[in-house]
């Protein structure tokens, strides 16, 4: 199986730095800002971004994580169920500027599910989307506000994001062929 590297761990770190800067630049600081990551890797990314923003601005931002399983549009008719985890957003999202974080933006269906899930929890003033990799092939009208890297891919390829917290190593890869080593989060 061919595997080409998009980022190594240093590239990963620099990208997160840049994205954090972009978030504070666009929002002119951290006033009313909160960050919500989509489980699993979006959650860890969100925490990294929040930590970086704190380093930049000297103010902490609230972080939460969202499990979108119950909002997926392909829950029925699957043979295996995705494991249901909990949403942990321990603050009121109403009136907040939420930065929604995910690792890979692909069809846009995960983001649609996440938006519905957030709307059931509260009424944010604004939701912005941050992704580490945008691989194209949208099936819904979704566009990210902050993108780590845009990568044109074919439908046969898989984008694999590895993070220290989950995978014990860090990097982003494009894998050829239909069988990924790690099941990619495709909603």
């Amino acid at each position, binding site marked *: 199986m061919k595997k080409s590297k998009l980022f190594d761990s240093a590239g990963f770190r620099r990208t997160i730095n840049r994205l954090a800067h972009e978030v504070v630049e666009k929002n002119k600081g951290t006033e009313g800002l909160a960050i919500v990551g989509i489980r699993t890797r979006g959650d860890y990314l969100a925490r990294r971004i929040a930590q970086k923003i704190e380093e930049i601005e000297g103010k902490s931002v609230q972080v939460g994580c969202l*499990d979108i*399983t*119950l*909002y997926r549009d392909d*829950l*029925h*008719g*699957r*043979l*295996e*169920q*995705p*494991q*249901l*985890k*909990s*949403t*942990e957003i321990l603050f009121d999202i109403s009136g907040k500027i939420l930065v929604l974080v995910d690792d890979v933006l692909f069809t846009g269906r995960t983001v649609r599910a996440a938006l*519905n899930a957030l709307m*059931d*929890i*509260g009424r944010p003033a604004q939701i912005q989307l941050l992704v580490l990799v945008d691989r194209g092939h949208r099936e819904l009208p979704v566009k990210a506000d902050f993108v780590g890297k845009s990568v044109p891919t074919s439908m046969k390829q898989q984008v694999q994001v590895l993070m220290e917290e989950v995978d014990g190593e860090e990097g982003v890869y494009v894998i050829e062929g239909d069988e990924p080593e790690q099941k990619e989060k495709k909603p």
Partner: protein
Amino acid sequence: MKLQSRHLLGLDGMSKEDIQLILDTAVSFKEVLDRPIKKVPPLQGKTIANMFFESSTRTRLSFELAERRLSADVVSFTTAGSSVSKGETLKDTARNIEAMKVDMVVIRHSAAGAAHFLSRVVQANVLNAGDGSHEHPTQALLDMFTLREKRGSLEGLHVCIVGDVTHSRVARSNIFGLITMGAKVSVCGPATLIPRDVEKLGVSVYHRLEDVLPKVDVLNVLRIQLERQERGLFPSLREYHRYFGVTKEKMALATKPVTIMHPGPINRDVEISADLADSEHSVILQQVTNGVAIRMAALYLLGTTN
């Protein structure tokens, strides 16, 4: 991630992995119940029929709430006023309900095996909400969920089920589930209310609360039914309370912190003293809250796989 069966009929024979999956899934639903909007969409478009051939308030409400919070369409009926009172058989009732394109059926019936029977004659997923003195799986699951929440793990925990074990489906489901999960189970009650050969299920038997109290971590106190007295199984409620009622005085014999459970509805000062039912040892109301989360988990897991 998937349950081995299409139905939830009982905990007898259910694997540890399946029980674990339901308990873990319920954790997520408990979080949903703490939200301002307590509704999620996974069973949108599914129709669930609640068939209660035996009276029940708590279980029926709990199931209905769980179903609605998963966005299912819900129809419910109780025996009174339905065609059952006109002599229709269970099979015909079920077939008719099925003809209305129902996806899942929740059934409570006074006959043991009613849910199993139903699962063989209809296409829908069947959930047993209590069948005679046989099983009441969601009650046992919510008991285990509550215990896990309170005590961290079920492994090695000594749970004593006190009261009318013979006629209790709650006791039976709890015994099956708890033993599978690695807990130690005992039963305590008058000899007339303890089934013969219950030891074969892997439980120890006590006939005096005083003997078991020093050893227990958990007491699951069963409701004592008045009609049992009429049948001569114990002399009087007062006497029952004196020997098997769980009271503050008897609890002084405990050597470990004890969690007290009760499946409800409580007969205050019969099987449990009122002060104890309201004490900090009691998790009786948590059990009710958790019941909705457990039923959401079971309905979700059964309703979203083919």
